[in-house]
């Protein structure tokens, strides 16, 4: 047991995580490409045309996975934040800041594809649907996190401040979702809501799941890749950096 603990903390040091991330990311990137290919094949060639929405519904194969990922990544950031605050590990802050841009990107994509879906289906680029609205607020939370951490010069202070933002945000996400939903049902009369999506066929569900898995693997790959850059930026004066093979010329 204690042996295993020691091993975990060994990888929590940037010096040993840097090469580990270097060997891991291509695997995740490869997995992401394969899953993405399968997912796209299902979404365009296997899944049948929807009798209500025609071909336009195919947008959900990226819209829904992107929304899932944007929420999931925020939770993972909050998880690393909690680890960072409890164990005072340097790596967890770096992981949070490596994940934030990807999470913000997925939130943006979810909004973008939501708008492109809404226009043909509801006749409007934007409706104040509960899910779209909370996704927008989640996007704001990501922007706040990124803006705050990049405004603080000292990276360790930035990590700690970011950790607090992530934790406060993660407490607020369900509250916001709940309040927006409440607000939405109060205001929305008979207009369309996304909850009335067509009953999901099994193939559609599979397509969405596989696309979500592809996005997940992509996020891991890109986060591992980005964390390598962050480690190098922060540890530039450490001796192990000077001894890296790619630093010799």
């Amino acid at each position, binding site marked *: 047991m204690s042996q295993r603990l020691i091993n975990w903390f060994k990888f929590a040091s940037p010096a040993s995580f840097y090469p580990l991330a270097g060997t891991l990311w291509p695997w995740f990137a490869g997995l992401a490409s394969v899953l993405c290919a399968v997912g796209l094949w299902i979404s365009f060639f296997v899944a*049948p045309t929807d009798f209500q929405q025609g071909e336009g519904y195919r*947008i959900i194969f*990226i819209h829904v996975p992107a929304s899932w990922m944007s929420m999931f990544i925020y939770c993972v950031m909050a998880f690393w934040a909690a680890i960072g605050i409890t164990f005072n590990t340097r790596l967890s802050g770096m992981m949070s800041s490596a994940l934030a841009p990807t999470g913000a*990107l997925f939130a*943006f994509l979810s909004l973008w594809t939501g708008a492109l*879906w809404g226009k043909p289906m509801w006749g409007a680029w934007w409706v104040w649907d509960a899910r779209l609205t909370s996704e927008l607020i989640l996007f704001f939370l990501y922007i706040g996190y990124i803006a705050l951490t990049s405004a603080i010069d000292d990276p360790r202070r930035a990590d700690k401040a970011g950790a607090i933002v992530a934790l406060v945000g993660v407490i607020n996400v369900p509250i916001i979702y709940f309040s927006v939903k409440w607000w939405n049902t109060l205001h929305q009369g008979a207009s369309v809501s996304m909850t009335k999506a067509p009953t999901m066929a099994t193939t559609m569900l599979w397509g969405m799941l596989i696309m979500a898995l592809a996005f997940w693997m992509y996020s891991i790959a890109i986060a591992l890749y980005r964390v390598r*850059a962050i480690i190098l930026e922060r540890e*530039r004066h450490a001796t192990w950096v000077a001894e890296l093979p*790619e630093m010799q010329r």
Partner: protein
Amino acid sequence: MNWGSTSEFFAMGGYGFYVWGSFGVTAAALLIEALLARKRLSDTRRLLRRELAADRDNQD
């Protein structure tokens, strides 16, 4: 198979603009993010290599 021809595939039953707008922007965004991450790592490495080389020269 859902599609009779390539043009039918791209038309997406009249929803081509919306479907390809979604998938295209998503693909572009992920690609750009990957490229930016690559640039960030290679820039950092180049900077550090230069710094280290300068340090070595100073020591010699």
